[in-house]
């Protein structure tokens, strides 16, 4: 007992110290999130901060965080600067890619949900499979397909036909490359979106005499919209930053905005200007994404409130 009586105050003190320590320490959740937070801090935030810092540095210098100027932005927004052309091409091609993919991917997504049955899994894998091969390799493959005396031209000539069309090194083939590359990024969110449409609702509408177009417009499309919009957003964000298609297939017949950024960081060695351009593009895409997400209330769309 005597031992216990002696031990008790120290135990109590130890316990209160432990409580205090626990109070000062991060919660379990925060501690578990720490590795991710550190990783994001180093891998995601640090480069963004560096880019942001460079955007305000003296042009063609490496005085990051040591100088402050708006000269880089002034150069970008100068009326004589033709960089808007690159921006126009990137936005235009991204919008067209989204529009074409929405039309192309919808029937496939519909098929994967309702038509292909047990073949759906295999067909899904076929659409995913090209993602395992480097994008550049796939695009060079298309060059070999379309090039003069290549697979298409050679085969047509072998069959005694006049030969393939001259499509390489044009903005059109750049668009084709983008549609091809980003198809899976539209298809799978759209497939998930369509999977959310309860078949009972469609059956009920049909029983009540609704036509196919009416069912599609009033039931399928609104209920699948979360998936469709997420697919569109994802595709747009990826497509506006696309470079390889315009370079490899398009033969730089147009210069896209990400290529302009690359030129600033390489041959021009004007990191501040490249950073300013990257910041403008990032803010543009960020604002557009936030605007779209503010309109896209997933909870409401999914009927949770």
């Amino acid at each position, binding site marked *: 007992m005597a031992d216990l009586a002696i031990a008790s105050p120290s135990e109590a003190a130890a316990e209160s110290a432990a409580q205090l320590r626990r109070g000062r320490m991060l919660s379990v959740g925060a501690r578990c999130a720490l590795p991710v937070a550190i990783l994001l801090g180093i891998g995601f935030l640090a480069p963004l901060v560096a880019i942001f810092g460079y955007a305000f540095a003296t042009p063609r210098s490496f005085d990051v965080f040591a100088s402050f100027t708006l000269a880089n932005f002034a150069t970008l927004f100068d009326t004589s*600067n033709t960089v808007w052309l690159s921006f126009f091409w990137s936005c235009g091609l991204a919008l067209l890619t989204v529009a074409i993919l929405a039309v192309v991917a919808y029937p496939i997504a519909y098929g994967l949900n309702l038509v292909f049955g047990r073949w759906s899994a295999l067909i899904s894998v076929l659409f995913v499979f090209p993602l395992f091969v480097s994008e550049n390799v796939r695009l060079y493959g298309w*060059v070999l397909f379309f*090039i003069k005396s290549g697979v298409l031209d050679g085969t047509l000539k072998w069959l005694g036909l006049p030969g393939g069309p001259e499509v390489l*090194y044009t903005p059109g083939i750049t668009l084709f490359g983008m549609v091809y590359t980003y198809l899976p990024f539209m298809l799978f969110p759209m497939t998930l979106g369509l999977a959310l449409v309860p078949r009972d609702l469609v059956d009920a509408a049909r029983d009540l005499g609704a036509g196919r177009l009416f069912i599609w417009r009033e039931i399928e499309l609104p209920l699948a919209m979360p998936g469709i919009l997420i697919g569109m957003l994802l595709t747009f964000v990826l497509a506006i930053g696309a470079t390889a298609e315009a*370079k*490899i297939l398009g*033969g730089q017949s147009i*210069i896209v905005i990400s290529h302009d950024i690359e030129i600033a960081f390489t041959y021009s*060695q004007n990191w501040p200007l490249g950073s300013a351009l990257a910041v403008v593009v990032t803010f543009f895409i960020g604002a557009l994404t936030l605007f779209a997400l503010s309109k896209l209330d997933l909870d409401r769309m999914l009927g949770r409130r």
Partner: protein
Amino acid sequence: MAHISRRSVLQGMGAGVAALAAAGPLFNANKAFAAREKELNILCWEGYNSAQVLDPFRSQTGATVKAESLTNDPTMINRLRAGEINTWDLINVNNPWARKVMLPEKLIKPLPKAEFEPFFETMLPMFKPPYKWAMSEDGAELIGMAQRFGPYSYVVNTDKISRKTAEDTGWDLFNDPALAGKYGILESDDWNVFNIFIIAGIDPFKVHTPDEMATFEETAKKVFKGAKLIGDIASMNQALISGEIDLHMTGGTYSVSPARADGHPNLRGITPLKGPLPGGKGGIAWIEITSTVNNPNLSPLALDFLKYVQAPDVAHKVAFAEGTFNPVSQMGNKACFDLFTKDELDAIQWDSLQEEMDRSAEYDIVPDYDKALDLMNAAKRLRG
């Protein structure tokens, strides 16, 4: 691109452990030195980073050798300026940068002259010591070693445009409306700046007047508008072979040699007979200079590597490293020259090499490059 094989990593690790054991008691005193004696980092053009060149050196020394290749000089130099001077041991760039930029900015340090100058004695005659580009401006210091070089103007498919026509017509080929849509432009923008100046009839390596800049801008718009494609070396060679284009601007042995070695001797680097460069020259040639970086903790292997690549068999490997095949200065040494087969000599256009070098000015720095490049980039955007 860093080439690290599993074997080299294991060798490096083994060597590292051995070095640690041996230097154990002295470890603290020699910490900095011990940390770099089995490590070598090379910043270079493609070729020096190939396994054919590096693996034997790794085996000989048990060192971890990393080589990163980039495809333009300013990027490499700016890596040093941005603080990577502590990382790299050797830098391999085109001729003027060592002498005119890197040494004055203390980005590189001189080589032991007595040890390295004798190597120039056995090189091809144009490299006889004191070789201008390997020396400091005052001629006192040896600042780098010369190895690969070559003429670099444009490439034609001689089945479509004969060598004679291409040499006689010169850069006016790109002013010919009949050839619009039949030529490509290699994505090598520093060289394209030189070439647009030359097509405009202006010497690129001088300060330009506003009128000359205006002419440059107009020429850039016209030349880029008329190009069928802009792309990398592989795209240019592929387009030439398939018949998509008949010629391409910025090119020579460095770019076309892989296609020639692959059975397309009809593709040929051309150096025009005349042009607006000093002495009426129309071509430009490059010479790579490899220098030791002014790294406060320079790897002792840096000098060993510079000697290693002088050996005839290694120089031959450097000449035929993967990706691009080029003449090397060590071909002046018979032991090295004899290693080249007839096909290899054909691939690097040995038959016309000397006359092409004689017709070429040597790569130099354009004083108003930034301004010209901005104009050229703007012209590129107007293609669409």
